[in-house]
């Protein structure tokens, strides 16, 4: 397990414009810059937010997947994806997606 590497990848996507560009243009090659297990790589590539969450990736960093629309994750499917694999919780009913529609760079 190298959850740190996933956290780092997401942190740098938000904070390093050059990596962000590579993540958008050639995401699979960009993933090679990080020491990921096959399972982690697959979870990222398939935008399996729930799986990444269960692995222990920091939730605030997971948000960057929808903020930058990486690996098919967007603000409309993020919440249902992060809940994948979780038992139903009545508090889900109160959930709505962040209103942020301000994505620029």
């Amino acid at each position, binding site marked *: 397990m190298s959850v*740190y590497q996933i*956290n*780092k990848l997401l*942190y740098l996507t*938000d*904070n390093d*414009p050059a990596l962000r560009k590579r993540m958008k243009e050639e995401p699979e090659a960009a993933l090679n810059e990080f020491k990921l297990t096959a399972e982690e790589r697959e979870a990222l590539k398939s935008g399996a937010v729930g799986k990444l*969450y269960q692995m222990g990736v*920091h*939730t*605030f*960093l*997971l*948000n960057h997947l*929808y*903020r930058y629309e990486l690996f098919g994750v967007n603000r409309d499917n*993020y*919440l249902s994806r*992060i*809940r994948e694999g*979780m038992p139903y*919780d009545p*508090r*889900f009913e*109160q*959930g*709505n*997606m*962040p*209103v*942020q529609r*301000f*994505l*620029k*760079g």
Partner: protein
Amino acid sequence: MAKLVLAAGVPHPPRLVYEMEHAPGKMKGEALMKQVREQVEKAAPDLIIEVDSDHFVNFFYNNLPSFCIGMAEEAQGPQETWCPMPRYTVRGHLPLAKALLRYGVNSKFDLAAAHELRLDHSLTVPLHFLNPGMELPVVPIYTNGFASPMPLATRCLALGRMLRKFIEAWEGKERIALIASGCFAMDVGGPLRGWTDTEWSETISSLLLRGQYQALARRATEERINRAGNNSGELLNWITVAGAVGATKPLFLEGDEGSGYAVWKFA
């Protein structure tokens, strides 16, 4: 001797900046933020100390202090490209920051120090409202309210007490405003997004209103904080400020969906 003239606590939703610009009157936080702003204006501070938790912009798991003093002469932010607000340059105050670092270390707080800072929205949103034009210098105190293990709330309360003693011992003549940035209970992009732990949020409000800061610090375990959602550790910034206000109760405190707006004033 410097003087603590006001303490305040506010949340830092980037959305508030955006909505106030584009659809004024829509959010409850708008009136509350203005109320805090009025009190800050009345108190006429000449320096702000802001207690905040960086959201993985300045700090990351590669180097993540529990407590850190911002020593930069100036810093820019918010750095997040997704943050819908103006970009600012914020001046620091190196002499005070250095003296605070020394005072803290001598008081057995092994504080970290950062001479370069990348400011995030959690630091700049409150300043956007409470330090218009970024006229006043700002010394940030960072607490790790964001990534487990967080410092103990009781330790944050003690940090605040030390901070008050420092302010009163500091050789400058500044009128100081102390601001806590953060919510009480919120899940930002976790699976419970949209749900608010109102029970915890109301407990926090009621303990703060009654001046029961120590009781709050004892109850604010990491386990309890985390149950309220991934951003709820920002409460540690409020508790740090509560440590600095002594026995003073808030002049006002208003809750707003897992957040609070409060002001303490000092004669």
